[in-house]
């Protein structure tokens, strides 16, 4: 059973548009939710993260929203660029746990 569910599997966006990725989770002890970005041939790299005490975190064109009641989070990318084309993973961890539980990823393609 997938503990972190991510949607959609893939997404196509035109340059300048807004990309929205969503995740949901089951484990109510999860309190840390990072998003990782992965380009072909590379390992994932941290893009943005949020703790469960917050409901929004912004970093430039990237914003993550967290809804504790619904156990959902989302990643919004505004003014999407072709360089944003990558696979995005949401992940989660609980206090005192090690490693992260990852979603299956969303492949994003941004066309000019």
């Amino acid at each position, binding site marked *: 059973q997938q503990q972190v569910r*991510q949607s959609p599997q893939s997404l196509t966006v035109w340059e300048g548009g807004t990309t929205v990725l969503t995740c949901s989770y089951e484990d109510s002890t999860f*309190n*840390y939710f*990072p998003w*990782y970005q992965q380009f072909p*041939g*590379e*390992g*994932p*790299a*941290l893009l943005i*993260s949020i*703790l469960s005490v917050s409901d929004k975190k912004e970093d430039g064109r990237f914003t993550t929203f967290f809804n504790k009641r619904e156990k959902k989070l989302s990643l919004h990318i505004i003014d999407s660029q072709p360089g944003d084309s990558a696979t995005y*993973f949401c992940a989660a*961890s*609980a*206090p*005192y*746990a*090690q*490693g*992260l539980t*990852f*979603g*299956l*990823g969303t492949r994003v393609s941004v066309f000019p």
Partner: protein
Amino acid sequence: EAAVTQSPRNKVTVTGGNVTLSCRQTNSHNYMYWYRQDTGHGLRLIHYSYGAGNLQIGDVPDGYKATRTTQEDFFLLLELASPSQTSLYFCASSDGGSAETLYFGSGTRLTVL
């Protein structure tokens, strides 16, 4: 900047073969991890370690051994490789704690024929 180096970049072996994947980090991080990445399964944790000589079991440990020889070096061992272990393997390091950033290497693509 954090640096995690994996070798080899690609490896092909036969069923029953013996494979060792290597990982070195120069971040002085305490924690190191081995993940496998497969389509339809995302990234799954195989083993991790919080220091030299320590080994902890992850979520998908069957068929894998690992050894942390120094703070810098973490090895993943497949002693009887099977086709189901064909995958993209990533090593990562972190400073520890559940909310710490994972720094990933570039991966090793393993094919078991």
